[in-house]
C-alpha cells in the first residue's frame, strides 16, 4: 500500500472508531455535566449494549446476514429494543446506586460507580463466558470501491463503514435537536448550568437527571449494537477500555460540553487508529492515557469547556 492509501485507510478507521467513541462520550459528558459524576460504569453499559443486542437478534431469529427487507424492518426494531434496554439499565443504576449519594462528598459516588462497573462486568462474564463471543455477520459487508465503483484499490471501504456513519450521525443530530429545541432538553441544559434556579423554574431536578441517564444509556446501547455489527466480536472486559478511551474523549472536548464530546470522540478515534498503525497497538493504551493525564493536569476544561474556579 502506498503511504497515502494507508493514511486514507487509517482515516476511515479513525472515523468509524471515533463515531462509536463519540456516542459513548456523550453519555459521560451529559451525566458529568448534570451531577458532576464520572460514571465509571458507563463503558460497561456500552458492552452490555452489544450483548443485549445479540440477545434481541437471537430472539428475533436473526443468525445470518439480514436481507434488504429485514434491514429496513428488523434492524430499526433491534436498535430501538437495545437502546431501550440499556436506557432502562442506566436509569436503574442511577436510582439504586447514585441517587442516594447526591449530597455526599464527590468521591463516594465515584467509588460506587467502580463497584457497579465490576458487577456489570462479572454479570457479562457469567452470561457469555470469558472467551470472545461471535457476533453473527448481521450487516452485509460490501466492498464499495470495488463492487459499486469498480475501483481496484488497496483501500477498504465497506457498507459497514457507511452503517457506522449512517447510524451515529442521525443519533447525534437527534440528540442535538432534543437538547437545543425541546422543552425537556432545555430543562436538562438548565439543570446542568444552575440546579437551584432550574428548580425555581418548576423543573423537577431528579426527573431531569433520570432523563439524562436514560439518553446516555440509550446512546451507549446504540454504540454497542454498532460495534457488534461492525467488528463481529465482543468480550466481557471491552467496556473498561472503551469506557476509558471515551472518557478521555469527553475530557478532551471539555467535560459537560456535548459538541465537545463528539469532537473528542473523533479525536480519540483518529488518535488510536494512527497510533495502532504508526507506532504499535501495544502502546496505544499508554498513549491515550498519557493524553488523558496531560489534559486533566494542564487543561482540565478541555477544548470547548469553561473554567470553573473553586469558591472559597
Amino acid at each position, binding site marked *: 500500500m502506498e503511504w497515502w492509501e494507508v493514511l486514507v485507510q487509517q482515516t476511515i478507521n479513525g472515523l468509524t472508531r471515533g463515531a462509536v467513541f463519540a456516542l459513548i462520550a456523550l453519555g459521560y459528558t451529559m451525566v458529568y455535566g448534570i451531577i*458532576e459524576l*464520572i460514571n465509571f460504569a458507563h463503558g460497561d453499559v456500552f458492552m452490555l449494549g452489544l450483548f443485549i443486542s445479540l440477545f434481541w437478534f437471537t430472539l428475533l431469529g436473526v443468525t445470518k446476514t439480514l436481507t434488504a427487507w429485514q434491514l429496513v424492518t428488523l434492524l430499526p426494531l433491534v436498535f430501538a429494543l437495545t437502546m431501550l434496554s440499556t436506557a432502562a439499565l442506566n436509569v436503574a443504576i442511577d436510582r439504586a*446506586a447514585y441517587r*442516594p*449519594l447526591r*449530597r*455526599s*462528598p*464527590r*468521591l*463516594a*459516588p*465515584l*467509588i*460506587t460507580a*467502580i*463497584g*457497579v*462497573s*465490576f*458487577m456489570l*462486568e*462479572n*454479570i457479562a*462474564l*457469567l452470561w457469555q463466558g470469558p472467551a470472545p463471543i461471535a457476533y453473527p455477520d448481521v450487516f452485509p459487508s460490501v466492498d464499495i470501491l470495488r463492487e459499486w465503483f469498480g475501483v481496484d484499490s488497496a483501500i477498504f471501504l465497506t457498507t459497514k463503514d457507511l452503517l457506522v456513519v449512517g447510524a451515529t450521525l442521525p443519533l447525534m443530530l437527534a440528540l442535538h435537536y432534543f437538547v437545543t429545541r425541546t422543552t425537556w432538553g432545555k430543562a436538562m441544559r438548565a439543570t446542568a448550568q444552575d440546579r437551584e434556579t432550574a428548580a425555581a423554574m418548576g423543573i423537577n431536578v431528579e426527573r431531569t437527571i433520570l432523563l439524562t441517564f436514560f439518553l446516555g444509556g440509550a446512546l451507549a446501547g446504540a454504540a454497542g449494537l454498532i460495534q457488534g455489527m461492525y467488528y463481529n466480536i465482543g468480550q466481557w472486559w471491552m467496556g*473498561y477500555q472503551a469506557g*476509558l478511551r471515551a*472518557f478521555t474523549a469527553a475530557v478532551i472536548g471539555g467535560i459537560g460540553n456535548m459538541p465537545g464530546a463528539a469532537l473528542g470522540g473523533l479525536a480519540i478515534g483518529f488518535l488510536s487508529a494512527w497510533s495502532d498503525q504508526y507506532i*504499535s497497538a*501495544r*502502546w496505544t*493504551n*499508554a498513549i491515550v*492515557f*498519557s493524553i*488523558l*493525564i496531560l489534559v*486533566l*493536569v494542564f487543561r*482540565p476544561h478541555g477544548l470547548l469547556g469553561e473554567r470553573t*474556579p*473553586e469558591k*472559597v
Partner: protein
Amino acid sequence: MRRASGWTALAAALVLYPFVDRALGLHTIHAVSDGMVYVLLALGLNIVVGYAGLLDLGYAAFFAIGAYAMALLNSPLLGSPLYGHAWSFWLCIWAAAAVSALLGVVIGAPTLRVRGDYLAIITLGFGEIIPVAIRNLGDITVEIGGWRPIERLNLTGGENGVNPVGRPYLPGVSFETDPAPWYFLILVIGALSVWAMSRLQDSRLGRAWMAIREDETAADCTGVNPISTKLLAFALGAWFSGFAGSVYAAKLQAITPGAFEFQVSIMLLCMVVLGGTGSLKGVILGGMLITVFDRVLLSQTTFFVRWVGRTIGIPALTTADLTLWRWFFFGLGLVLVMLVRPQGLAGRRVRPIAVVDDVDQPTVQEAAPAARAESIPPWLRERVQRGGGPESAPILEVRGLTKRFGGVIALNGVDLSIPRGAIVGLIGPNGAGKTTFFNVVTGLLRLDGGRITFDGASVVGLRPNAIVARGIARTFQSIRLFPHLTALDNVLVGQHCRLTATVTGGMFRTPAVVAEEARARARARELLAFVGLGGKGADLARNLAYGDQRRLEIARALATEPRLLLLDEPSAGMNPRETETLTELIGLLRRELALSVLLIEHHMEVVMGISDRITVLDYGTRIAEGGPQEIQRHPRVIEAYLGTGYEDELAARRGAR
C-alpha cells in the same frame, strides 16, 4: 492498655497460626502468606487514601514497581551484579522500596493541583500505563529510516516476566518450598510496617495528612504545606508497597505484568474502604476478611451449593462456581459500603449534627466561660509580642490592591493600613469584595496589582502556608474546621508550622521530638482553656455546638502564633450572649497580647463597638476610612448601605410633615 491488648491478641494469633495449621493439617500457610502481602499493600494504600484522603485508583503500579525492582536487581535475567550474594535480598528490598517511593513522587506530582475525582482518574491512568510499559519494554526496537540504533532491547522481561528471582538468605533458614519461613518473614515486615505507620499517624506529619484530607484549603491557611504533605503521602504509601512487592517477587520466584492490573488496585481499595479509611486495625481486619472471602469462602460455598444441588436435585446448582462471582461481590461490597457509610471518605460536605435549641432552654445553655487575662498562656504572650519592625510602623500595609475576575473588577486599588496592636474593621454591602480582600492577603488568590507589606516585608506571591508561617492567621466565614478530628487535634494542626519534627524523627520518636510534641500538646490544651473549651479537647469538631466551633477556629488560628489575625464574620449565627463573649475575647487579645486584628463583620454593633478604625468597601473600592462615629455619619457610607439620596429623602419627608 486497652489499645495494646487488641494488638497483642492479634500478634499472638498470627504467630501461633502456622503451628495450628501444621497441627490441623490445613495447608493454608501459602495462601495466608499471599494474603498478608495484599494486606500490607492495603496498609500502604491506607496512607494515601485513608490518612491523606487522596483516592488512588492505580496503586497496583507501585506494587508492580516494587516487585520489578526487586526482580530486576536480584535476578540473573538481565545480569544484575547484585544477584547471588547472601545480602542480595536484604539490600534489594530497601532499594525496591526507595524506587517505589520515587515513583510515588513522580505519580503524585501531576495530581497536586487537581481535585479529587480527577486525581483518582490520573492515578488510574498511571496504573494502566505502567503495566503497558512493563509489557512492552521487554522488546524495544527503535527504527529511524533504515537505521536501528536499538534492537530488541530487554528492560523488563516483557510479557514473559522475570524469573528466577533471588531468595532471601538467613543462616539456618531455608527459603524454599516450606511456607513457614516466608510466612514469618512477611509477618515481621508487616509488623514493622504497622509499627511505622502507627507512629506516623500520631505524628506531626500524620496530623498534616488528616488536615489535608478534611479540608485542604483550610489546612493550607493553617500553615500546612499541601504540596510536600501530599507528596510525602504518595512516597511513603508507595514505600511499603515496595516491601510488599519485593517479598512477593522473591516468594513467587517469577513475576509477570499480568499480576498488576486494575482489579488488584480495586481489591486493595475494597480492603481500605471496608476497614474504615484511616484505621490500621480496620484495614488489617478488612484485608483479612476479603482475603478469606476471596480464597476460602467462595470456594467453600461453591462446594456447599453444589452439594445442595445434588441433594435437592437442581441441576443448575451442581455446576455452580461461585469463585467466578468474586468481582461481582467486590463491586457489590463497594456499593454497599458507600451507600451505608458515604462519609467514610471525608470531604467538605459533612452531615450536620442536631443542635440544641436554645430558644426553649435559655437558662440551661451555659454561656462559655469568658476568657480572662490570667488564662492567656505565657508562651503565647511572648511569641506574639516578639519580633517585627518598629512600634510605629503599621503591621500590615496594603497599597493599590487590585483583583480582577475575568472582566469584573473585584478590588479596585484598595488601600488599607493596620497599625500595630489595633483592631480594624472591614465593612461594606454585599459583594463589596471583603472576603476577596482576605483571600488575596492570605495568598489564596493572586493579586493583579498593588503591594502587600507585612511587618516590613512583602508577602505577595507567597503560598498561604508560608504566609501563616510569617505570622498572619485567619478564620473563615463559614466555619472550616477539620470535622473528623478532635478539638485538640484541630488546634495541634495550628502548631504545625511552628514544629520542626521530621518524618524520621516522628517515626523513631527521638527525645527532641517527644519533648516538642509534649510541649505542643500542653500549649494546645492551654489555648482550648483560654477560649473556653477547656474540657472538650477530645470531642470531635463536628459534634461541638456552633458557638464552640467558632471559638475552636480562633484557638486554631492562635496556635499558629500569629501577629495579625484576620477574622471573617466571627459572630455570624451567634446569639447576643455569645456575640458579647466573642467581642470580649477579641478585645482581650488586643489588650493583653497587642495582637493586631482585621475584622470583617456584618454585625454593626460588634464592629462599631470594638474597632479602632474602620474601612468601608463598596464594589471593590474604598469609599471611607475612619473611626466608628465618623463612619456611621459618613454620607457615602449611608448611601452605599441604604441607597443613594437616603438622607435627603429622609430630610425631605420629615420636612414635609
